[in-house]
């Protein structure tokens, strides 16, 4: 759980950095590599990081790693389309993805800890009187 949690956290930070670069250094995405501008490549790098974290943590709970693998191409396209088409609705979608994933990861992390805590009280000794006989516990004659 912690691997995918930290993976999503890093992914969200990178998304946030990417959006800030989009806002304040817009012209940096203009340069092209292999006929595609930097908006595609930067979004792809960020999403590849998420894919790597998802693959690493696939042995644990399946929800977030599978979700991470599914949203990767969508997220890359949304950022690329937002920059090239100048449509901020695509950018909205790009930001919503880490928001949703981080929410799920935080909730899962929270409940994971809660379930561990719940195990401890079961070991406490009961103060209620018990029927103890020579034959054993819980046998009445």
């Amino acid at each position, binding site marked *: 759980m912690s691997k995918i949690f930290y993976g999503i956290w890093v992914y*969200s*930070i990178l998304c946030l950095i990417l959006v800030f670069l989009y*806002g304040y250094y817009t012209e940096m995405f203009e340069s092209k590599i292999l006929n595609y501008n930097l908006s595609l490549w930067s979004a792809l790098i960020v999403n590849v990081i998420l894919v790597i974290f998802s693959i690493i943590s696939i042995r644990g709970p399946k929800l977030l790693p599978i979700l991470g693998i599914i949203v990767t191409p969508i997220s890359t396209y949304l950022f690329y389309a937002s920059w090239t088409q*100048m449509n*901020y609705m695509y950018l909205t979608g790009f930001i919503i993805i880490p928001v949703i994933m*981080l929410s799920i990861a*935080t909730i899962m992390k929270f409940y994971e*800890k809660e379930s561990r805590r719940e195990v401890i009280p079961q070991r406490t000794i009961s103060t209620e009187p018990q029927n103890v006989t020579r034959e054993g516990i819980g046998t009445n004659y």
Partner: protein
Amino acid sequence: MSQTLLEKLSPQGNPRLLSKIIIFMVLLGICLVPTVKAIGLGPTQLGVTVEKGAETSFTRNILVWNSLETPLHVKATVSGSIAPFIKLEPEEFDLAAGPGMSSEKPSPSQYVVVTFSIPREVAESKYTGTITFSEAPTQGGTLATAIALDVGVKLNIGTMAKAKFPVYVTALIVILTIMLISSVVVVIMRRYYE
């Protein structure tokens, strides 16, 4: 052989030439009179300079009016390299019969909205084109002459502008930042209480 031009044009000199000239003038008159005054336009030039990525779309208006006493059906088309970035609304419209060319009364008119939509990724820094307003024959079957008046369009694209996020994008950035901070706080607090 030594005839002057007047003598040549006189009925006695060359009657066929004179009649040809008269027929030509009449035909030219039929063609030109409606073309010159039928449709009026303003402005006749549109020049726009924008920063790359500064504006997604903006509009300009062109006024078209009819000076003739007959109704007109006008069709607008765009040509040139600017065509992919321009949309006209309406592309076809009818103009009612005007008060006549010599009248001082206002002519029936129609505004055509020219919407420019320029993506951030454009290959050139200059785009040119023409918006042509041509008169199509009306249903009444008036003389369909090839009338076409043009509005020249020039679009200059400058350097890349900074992105201006709308409110909902800014709000989402704030939410994501809060989420990042709160998730860290949750993890630290849990570790502390353990």
